């Protein structure tokens, strides 16, 4: 590939989004925005992670591998909800990281990014400057906003999703593959 510096962002129409309440049908403009956001998400995190996001409803990221070659912790990255950190060996949630990415560049315009853009912003911030994001976030105990039982189920669903996709998966607990 050649030297192509493509700067992407933020022009064009703004919808009158009031939030993605459960059960509310997206307007055509919102659907188009979500589709664009998912395309961008897939181009950054890859097809496997995008497929997991579509099936599970959240993105994921792992910390660095430890001495045993496995990541010690990971993150469940929900759209417009707190990030949940978890112990990859026990499958237990550790903390909730409450962080938002409000678009405040136009006064009076909606602040809410499309869901896929929100999880991508969280993922890029975690991968690019994890400590910086932790410094910005309000860190709460598990269960503050997300039911710990749901978080545990989602951790298990993630593990089940990853294992069949990983030929090196171990039989033991935890996650055999980091990103």
């Amino acid at each position, binding site marked *: 590939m050649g030297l192509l510096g493509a*700067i992407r962002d933020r022009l064009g129409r703004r919808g009158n989004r009031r939030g993605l309440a459960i059960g509310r049908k997206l307007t055509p403009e919102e659907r188009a925005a979500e589709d664009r956001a998912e395309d961008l998400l897939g181009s950054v995190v890859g097809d496997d992670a995008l497929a997991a996001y579509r099936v599970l409803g959240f993105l994921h990221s792992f910390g660095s591998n430890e001495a045993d070659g496995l990541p010690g912790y990971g993150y469940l990255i929900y759209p417009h909800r*707190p990030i949940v950190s978890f112990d990859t060996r026990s499958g237990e949630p550790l903390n909730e990281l409450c962080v938002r990415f409000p678009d405040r560049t136009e006064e009076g315009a909606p602040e809410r990014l499309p869901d896929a853009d929100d999880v991508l912003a969280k993922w890029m911030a975690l*991968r690019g400057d994890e400590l910086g994001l932790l410094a910005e976030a309000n860190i709460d105990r598990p269960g503050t906003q997300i039911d710990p039982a749901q978080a545990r189920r989602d951790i298990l669903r993630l593990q089940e999703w990853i294992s069949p996709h990983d030929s090196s998966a171990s039989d033991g607990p935890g996650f055999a593959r980091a990103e």
Partner: protein
Amino acid sequence: MRSGYGDQLIAEGDPGVEEQERELIEAFRRQLDQGLWAAVPTSENGHREATLVRDFSEVPRDAERVIFFPPAAGG
């Protein structure tokens, strides 16, 4: 990234060409002046990462794109 819209291409060029590089730098600065964060996604052997950059000089010469997004705020 933009609320209610998704992403859109705002500038494109070859940083090896002086005039195009200048336009890319100006576009880059406009976004950061608005307080946005900038990330350079990378992929190596299927491993995906992102690097946050605060100056155009930090953008790798072989980068394919820079993504701007609103800064994080405690929720």
